[in-house]
């Protein structure tokens, strides 16, 4: 059975991610899918959610999605805008962020992330942008949510470089390194919702998006996928969720085209 035609896998991913956010969350937001998910949450069920972009804007409520983390819209609608060292010291390192939202070029089954290089660090096949805020977002946020579209290139048995630490080799690897935050607790792809196994910390499929099969998930993933005992079906986007997301995207496109 195919995905119903009325929404795309990417829309489902964004909406599923938005549902995971609560009204009292304080989110450190990256650009792209995380930004859309956070703003849909704000426009839907979490009007008081605090969105923080690493440019220093705290409590933003942009009318359109920012092109980058430093858009003027973020500053104009923020409660306050602070210097970047303060952002990383008081707000991230200070433990004030409940959810750090990360994307990934490569991810492994333990939520370790690579956004640095494909190949060897010193002689890379492909040089990627690097970590930016991610290495500390991954360890200082109380929890980490990850979103990415599934592919064998993106979801791999072994990542080429540990840009951001997830659960390492699994189990209590975080605690062994003295890291007392929870790390990746949620992975939302265009096909499924994954949560770490309580003991091994391996990401396990807990919910398939409507119409998605187990085979589809396995075919687009580089490791042998584990499924939870009672895999659920992700509720499809409601009409309101879908309209809200599409309105936001349309406003965003119009605004950036007009710039």
């Amino acid at each position, binding site marked *: 059975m195919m995905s119903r035609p009325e929404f795309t896998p990417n829309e489902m991913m964004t909406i599923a991610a938005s549902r995971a956010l609560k009204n009292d969350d304080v989110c450190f937001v990256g650009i792209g899918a995380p930004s859309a998910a956070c703003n849909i949450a704000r426009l839907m069920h979490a009007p008081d959610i605090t969105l923080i972009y690493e440019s*220093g804007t705290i409590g933003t409520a942009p009318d359109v999605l920012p092109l980058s983390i*430093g858009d003027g819209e973020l500053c104009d609608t923020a409660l306050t805008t602070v210097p970047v*060292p303060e952002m990383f*010291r008081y707000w991230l390192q200070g433990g004030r962020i409940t959810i750090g939202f990360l994307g990934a070029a490569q991810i492994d089954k333990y939520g370790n992330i690579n956004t640095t290089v494909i190949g060897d660090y010193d002689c890379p096949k492909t040089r990627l942008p690097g*970590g930016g805020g991610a290495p500390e977002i991954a360890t200082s946020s109380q929890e980490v949510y990850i979103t990415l579209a599934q592919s064998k290139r993106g979801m791999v048995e072994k990542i080429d470089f540990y840009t951001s630490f997830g659960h390492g080799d699994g189990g209590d690897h975080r605690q062994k390194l003295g890291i007392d935050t929870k790390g990746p607790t949620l992975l939302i792809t265009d096909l499924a919702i994954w949560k770490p196994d309580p003991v091994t910390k391996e990401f396990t499929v807990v919910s398939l998006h409507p119409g998605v099969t187990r085979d589809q998930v396995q075919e687009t993933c580089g490791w042998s996928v584990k499924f939870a005992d009672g895999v659920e079906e992700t509720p499809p986007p409601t009409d309101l969720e879908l309209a809200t997301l599409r309105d936001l995207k349309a406003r965003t496109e119009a605004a950036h085209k007009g710039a």
Partner: protein
Amino acid sequence: MARFVPLSQAVAENLGNGDSVAFEGFTHLIPTAAAHESIRQGFRDLTLIRMTPDVVYDQMIGMGLARKLVFSYAGNPGVGLLRRLRDAVENGFPHKLEIEEHSHAAMANAYEAGAAGLPCAVFRGYRGAELARVNPNIKFIECPFTGESLAAVPALRPDVVFIHAQKADRKGNVLVEGIVGIQKEAVLAAKRAVVSVEEVVDDFSDLHPNLTILPHWTVADIAVVPGGAHPSYTHAITRVTTPNI
């Protein structure tokens, strides 16, 4: 002590071959005009420093100005890849580029430590992160009270820092507002700071007392360059223009 001079003079008299230099800005207030002037003047062997090197750094690398790059995120956020940087790192073109790579938290703390006159920054970072393996300028120290392992990186003290700001007053005091980024720390960490501004006003006497002001004695030279951050924007003055690259 700030002088008001043309941009070409400010660049010529503050930057030199082999210098470490940062052109800092965070999506808005990027000192594009100063960077382009540096390309025109054809400097060599620069150590380029910046948290998020974007298209102007890509141009400088492509034109062969850079010997080394110190950075934490190499990309045009929301706009595109850095193709000249990739060519330099992957293929050594136009020549081999040495890189010193950090996280944003490390760079921000390193500028802060530079502004604070310290030799190093201490923070909770790089836990489980592989950059600590490939960058010898990442070390760990122990908290003398709790025994916790904390990351340490050397303070950033660039020879020259360029920023773009909204306003200077006639004495040479500089106002930065909106997304203030890392610019204040970068200027205070620099041996010499050069600021391009949109405009010069008589004085700042009506400003709120807690705004970000760089006193004139922290700046070497000021050049009046309206639109000097284009294609990035200047908060409250110009809007962003999506660059066509």
